[in-house]
């Protein structure tokens, strides 16, 4: 009961800090906008009005959903490929000598430059998803690889002594052990995903928040541009916070 009260108090405190910081930032922004009076710096009220119109008109929701669908699909692909390949690269002899060097060697390549090639191979929509999936694959595969090699031997022995197979060791020891590392990898992947989705969506404009930013920038409609930037940033922050909360909840159970 005391513990629940304490954590409730801490959440309220954190919330208060966030609200105060945001209010201060908006006040500063308003001051700057009204002082300098530049077209590229609209007031918060102008941006808020634009956000309201885009929201009620349905454009904002429609484009947010397009972006979210692309990011979530790409992250799922990255997870489905990153987790097993990370496990194979660290837990099997063939993986260690073949797959691991390939993952490590291809990691530093600037994958975003692949968009034009992917465009010709996969078409407009899937090239956007593919480039996000490729870039987010690396933090997931690398953290899986790193953590899977560190899984404690005693727990593996315990499962083996129960007659457990290699698959049992993976399911009951390695995967639960790497979850915190995997979530950290996913947290890094998510922040990268929202940066990459902007580049991918502004390459060929077929909807999404990135396309809207690009479109409104070319029209010099700054309030609209800010509205979409804020929405994209909010998505990034919310996704990051969600995974961070998951990570904390899991760790609380173990430590």
């Amino acid at each position, binding site marked *: 009961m005391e513990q629940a009260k304490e954590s409730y108090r801490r959440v309220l405190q954190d919330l208060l800090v966030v609200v105060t910081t945001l209010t201060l930032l908006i006040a500063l922004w308003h001051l700057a906008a009204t002082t300098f009076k530049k077209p590229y710096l609209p007031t918060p009220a102008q941006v808020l009005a634009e956000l309201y119109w885009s929201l009620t008109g349905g454009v904002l929701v429609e484009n947010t959903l397009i972006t979210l669908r692309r990011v979530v699909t790409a992250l799922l692909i990255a997870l489905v490929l990153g987790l097993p390949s990370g496990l194979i690269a660290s837990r099997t002899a063939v993986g260690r000598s073949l797959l691991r060097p390939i993952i490590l060697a291809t990691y530093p390549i600037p994958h975003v430059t692949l968009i034009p090639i992917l465009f010709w191979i996969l078409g407009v929509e899937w090239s956007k998803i593919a480039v996000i999936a490729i870039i987010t694959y690396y933090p997931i595969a690398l953290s899986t690889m790193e953590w899977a090699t560190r899984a404690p031997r*005693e727990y593996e*022995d315990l499962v083996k002594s129960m007659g457990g197979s290699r698959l049992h060791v993976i399911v*009951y020891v390695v995967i639960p052990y790497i979850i915190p590392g995997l979530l950290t990898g996913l947290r890094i992947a998510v922040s990268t995903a929202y940066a990459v989705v902007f580049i991918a969506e502004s390459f060929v404009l077929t909807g999404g928040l990135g396309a809207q930013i690009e479109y409104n920038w070319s029209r010099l409609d700054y309030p609209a541009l800010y509205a979409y930037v804020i929405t994209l940033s909010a998505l990034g922050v919310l996704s990051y916070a969600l995974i961070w909360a998951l990570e904390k909840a899991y760790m609380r159970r*173990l430590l």
Partner: protein
Amino acid sequence: MKLYIEDLTFKYAQSNTYIFDSFNHVFEGPRLHIILGPNGVGKTTLLKLIAGILNPLRGFITLEGGSLSKGSVSYVPQDNELLPWLSVYANVELPLRIAGIDGNERRLRVVEALKAMGVLGYANRYPRHLSGGERKRVALARALASNSKIVLLDEPTANLDPRSRELLWGYLRSLARDRLVLVVTHDVSEALHEDGLIHILAGRPARVVEVFEGGEGAWSRLRRAIDVYYKIS
């Protein structure tokens, strides 16, 4: 039931010294066996070999002449005896899941075992919320639920307070009524427990140098054995 160890030969890959070289011994059950010996003699290695965690270079470990199937042995290591990411219930259930036992029977056996070891109230907790003694009892419940004929425990009472030690020994004795229970320890006072058969492991390569009944009467033999054999390794 008899656990035969025949011609057991083992050394760690990175070492030149043989821990066991043509080691022969028999543990008869149901009974509580206490394996004593100096640090580093090979007590834990012996348990790991019986548990199938380590593979011998040569030799056999058999139960009544038949090969030792992995499910017939329960191993409780000194530390990390439970998986921290599974609840107490799931930890006890794990060997039954691995053995492919169906859900209803699994539930019955887990609840019965938790009850027998006095830890049913902790079923939904995670290992980090338990004391050292409670964790050991959950590990014993796991051995009980899996119906293993042989239960191996490595230093089960290390780091436990005197009351938890006594409680644990009580549970071990009840477990040994219909099982072969092998307890490894380097704490000689454990040998004073009634019902236990003491095996002194000494030397390099290790061998069983003395076997005698536990209890108060064992003290003088134990002191002599310590004087003679604990200097060897």
